[in-house]
């Protein structure tokens, strides 16, 4: 037996309905002073499956609908109920309380932007005559390995630059919608931007509208995913290790 810890809430929090966590086990709150840990029983030796990951996220998403919760990174598992207190103790009750308070009434919304590669390439070919020229040269002399490399190199560099420019533009637009915003690293591929917005739960409608407007003016090459509301995952990241949230 073990207990999976989903997150930390204020002791005043009540679950609005029965939540089921990993393995469909019922979720409960273990109160420690002013705080409570959100837990459910698990077999601590069990292999982690995709359903376990989803369960962790869903429990937290259900709670964040009407309460503030500090989300644990997946994988915090204790032996028994006594150890739940140890967790809160070792993290520092005061620190957790302050941190929790700082997110009062706030939720995270995540915005991810992606390039459609073909559209992005079309854009580059339209905007950059020198790329068109390179491409035409390559097409005229298809056997040239080096001309292909040269073309590809130029395309790659321009795609990167385009992604950065698009990301900056989106960031500027999104900043106006959030109390705070942090960017996650995007590691190549088609993802252009991964931004976490901290917004007032009550102001969700305005945020939705803002995102809808951004979507409306988005060039063909870009698409957005808009996810949430989530607990403030990206804003507690590393807090207890004393690292800045801007990883």
């Amino acid at each position, binding site marked *: 037996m073990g207990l999976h810890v989903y997150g930390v809430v204020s002791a005043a929090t009540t679950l609005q309905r029965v939540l089921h966590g990993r393995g469909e086990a019922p979720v409960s709150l273990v109160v420690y002073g002013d705080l409570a840990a959100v837990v459910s029983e698990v077999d601590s030796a069990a292999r*982690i499956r995709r359903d376990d990951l989803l*369960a962790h996220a869903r429990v937290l998403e*259900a709670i964040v609908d009407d309460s503030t919760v500090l989300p644990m990174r997946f994988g915090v598992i204790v032996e028994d109920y006594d150890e739940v207190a140890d967790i809160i103790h*070792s993290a520092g009750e005061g620190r957790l309380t302050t941190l929790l308070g700082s997110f009062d009434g706030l939720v995270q919304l*995540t915005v991810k932007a992606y390039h459609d590669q073909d559209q992005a*390439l079309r854009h580059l070919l339209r905007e950059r005559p020198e790329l068109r020229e390179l491409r035409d040269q390559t097409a005229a002399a298809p056997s040239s390995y080096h001309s292909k490399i040269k073309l590809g190199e130029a395309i790659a560099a321009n795609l990167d630059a385009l992604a950065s420019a698009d990301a900056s533009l989106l960031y500027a637009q999104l900043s106006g919608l959030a109390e705070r915003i942090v960017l996650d690293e995007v590691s190549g591929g088609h993802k252009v931007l991964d931004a976490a917005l901290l917004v007032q739960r009550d102001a969700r409608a305005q945020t939705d509208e803002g*995102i809808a407007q951004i979507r409306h003016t988005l060039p063909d090459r870009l698409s957005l995913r*808009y*996810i949430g509301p989530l607990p403030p995952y990206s804003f507690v990241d590393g807090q207890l290790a004393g690292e800045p949230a801007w990883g």
Partner: protein
Amino acid sequence: MTTAIQPAGAGGPSGGSSSSGLADVIDTILDKGLVIDIYVRVSLVGIELLTIDARIVIASVDTYLRFAEAVNRLDLTENGPEGLPELMEDITRNGAKRKTEGALEGVKEKVGEVFSRDDEDEDEDDSEDEDRSSRSRRRQSEPARKSTSSRRRDS
């Protein structure tokens, strides 16, 4: 379909935000959130599967060739060279492979990226009731899947 842990906001006046999918979840909960190190007790076996060296990046030369092919493909109707492409592709690909063999670079990347790629490719196919054993098999073959198409078949 169960609604037991459906977020309550789903029925609200949503202008569009959606609930997180598997890729988002992996992206987030394995990477972000409070960490209290001494209590992280997930069995390493499980986590290792989830944070495999998921992506093999064939260093720049192959990427460049891919881009070159992509832009040439864009307007083939305009001025595509006739006949040649198939043959030429084979030759250049083999040439590229030789040149980049030493430059294979395993990049530690979250499996989230892999899954999101899968989601894009397979979309609805990635259903919840997918058989678990096939899923884990798929995970183990991820490094190869991210590679070139010829390598993909090798696994």
